[in-house]
């Protein structure tokens, strides 16, 4: 059996009194697209820098492909990084940038040229190898940074919020592109982001970090549908947390049905009355912020299928919110859900 591409064991790192990484255990399998998701200050970038070797941990162990690299300097590690600011060498051409890793490893010129060519092809920048970085657009620089890292065929490719500086449209394009490249080259990706949508769309598995600790690890749908903690529930997507009969549980907005007068709930649904406090139009859908008569505030989402302008007229209306108990997820009691699902 192949050892995992990356294994972290009790990794800790603090700066002065600030604990940036508070004991992280993690295993990333070969070929996985693994995302570290968390708000700023959650320790995700520090974790990435520890894996790359730019920082050394106060405690714990880091393994790459089964080898202990905890005290190996960055230039001897089989990792490559795509930096947030790309960090392209301004005095080198695109081709020299991409070939630099191969050059310092002493790879012959002919092979170097061939591999650089292939990498450029992969990121669809063929013909630009003579340009300087300052003659490229943001999206092109991003691709060069990616090619410069991938060309070395590292055990693990580390990406530090690589799409952060791009505009929305380009970002979505690059998300698909990154995924395509990752599948093609089969390199293990460890991807840092604070963008939950990015994490959900791209990852095979993801870890949600908060205050230097991992809150949950799992495939995106599992993390979204079954958040392990209130933090995860709150950080990923909009979540409604309710407490009824001493049990705290999460209902996602899209699972709530908003019933108007005269509409009947289906059998088996829980129904609670309330008032629409605010209507937020978001284009494809509309969010209704509803204050339940019992005091809780919930968010419901509806697709905008009605005539334009209809949604905004709901403000102040009396409504009832209905949900299927099996669509909720009980917090802090991982097992409770399967019980609820069984009774569904």
């Amino acid at each position, binding site marked *: 059996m192949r050892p995992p591409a990356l294994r972290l064991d009790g990794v800790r790192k603090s700066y002065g009194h600030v604990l940036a990484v508070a004991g992280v255990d993690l295993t990333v399998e070969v070929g996985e697209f693994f995302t570290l998701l968390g708000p700023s200050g959650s320790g995700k970038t520090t974790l990435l820098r520890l894996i790359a*070797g730019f920082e050394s941990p106060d405690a714990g162990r880091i393994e790459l492909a089964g080898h202990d690299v905890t005290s190996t300097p960055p*230039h001897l590690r089989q990792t490559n990084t795509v*930096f*947030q*600011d790309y960090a392209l*060498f301004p005095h080198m051409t695109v081709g020299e940038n991409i070939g630099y890793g191969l050059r*310092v490893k002493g790879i012959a010129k002919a092979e170097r040229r061939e591999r650089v060519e292939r990498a450029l092809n992969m990121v669809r920048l063929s013909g630009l190898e003579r340009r300087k970085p300052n003659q490229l657009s943001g999206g092109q620089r991003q691709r060069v940074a990616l090619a410069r890292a991938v060309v*070395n065929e590292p055990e693990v490719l580390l990406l530090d919020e690589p799409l952060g500086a791009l505009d929305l449209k380009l970002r979505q394009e690059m998300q698909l592109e990154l995924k395509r490249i990752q599948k093609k080259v089969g390199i293990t990706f460890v991807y840092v982001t604070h963008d939950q949508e990015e994490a959900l769309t791209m990852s095979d598995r993801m870890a949600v970090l908060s205050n230097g600790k991992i809150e949950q690890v799992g495939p995106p749908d599992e993390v979204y549908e079954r958040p392990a903690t209130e933090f995860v529930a709150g950080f990923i997507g909009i979540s409604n947390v309710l407490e009824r009969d001493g049990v705290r549980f999460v209902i996602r907005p899209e699972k709530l049905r908003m019933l108007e007068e005269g509409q009947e709930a289906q059998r088996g649904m829980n129904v609670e009355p309330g008032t629409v406090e605010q209507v937020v139009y978001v284009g494809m859908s509309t969010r209704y912020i509803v204050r339940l008569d019992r005091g809780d505030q919930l968010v419901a989402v509806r697709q905008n299928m009605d005539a334009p302008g209809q949604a905004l007229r709901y403000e102040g209306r009396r409504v009832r919110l209905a949900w299927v108990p099996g669509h909720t997820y009980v917090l802090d009691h991982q097992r409770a859900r399967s019980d609820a699902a069984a009774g569904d």
Partner: protein
Amino acid sequence: MEGFLTKLALRTWAVLILLFLFIPIILILVYAFNSSNIESWPLPGLSTKWFAATWDDPEIRAALELSLRAGLTATGLALVLGSCAAFAVQRMTFFGRDVVSLLFVLPLALPGIVTGMALNSFFHFNGITLSIWTIVVGHTTFCIVVVYNNVLARLRRTQGSLIEAAMDLGANGFQTFRDITLPLIATAVVAGAMLAFALSFDEVIVTTLVAGAQNTLPLWIFGAVRLGQRLPEVNVVVSFVILVTIVPVAIAARLTGGSGVVRTQAER
């Protein structure tokens, strides 16, 4: 119309200021070609005879040689010390770093008379005979600052992630320095050296106090003017000094994009 008048007034004003600044310098350049040894206007005739006379003068030759040797040596020392200091201050965090940084720049801000007096007393106190080496030490104090300022400014503008990127790609410390750091700071180092040499080449105050009986080119000019002797040669020598200082300063300005030069010159 008002816009036009304002523009015209501003332009006239700018031209007047430029004339104020440069007429004396231009006059000297013109008088260097005077055929007579009496300065009168208009010139009785044009000639280059003073250039030959100046060049053949052993006293002036010796002063030029001393100036060049002292300037080049001081620049060389400043290059090594100033660059190293800039790296240390940029790369490391240590107790009192800001104070150290200030101390490096202080010699440039201090009046030359203070630096000169201090060095003079120091040499005297320790029984060191004034020689070319005392001049070199005196000039190095302010030359370091120029190199230090230029290199530090460049290092601060350079993305820190570039160094990390190089290491990440497998370059060791030496390769990173050779392939990334050095090319990125090279122009700043050269600019710093050129400015340092220009400063050294026309320095008078500190030099007076540490040179003893020797004459650098500016000291020779100073002496000749004070005694009112050999003014035609003075004009030639001054023209030469102008050339030798302006060219490096202009090159340095090109290399650093202008900003660094103006600041360091103004501080002096």
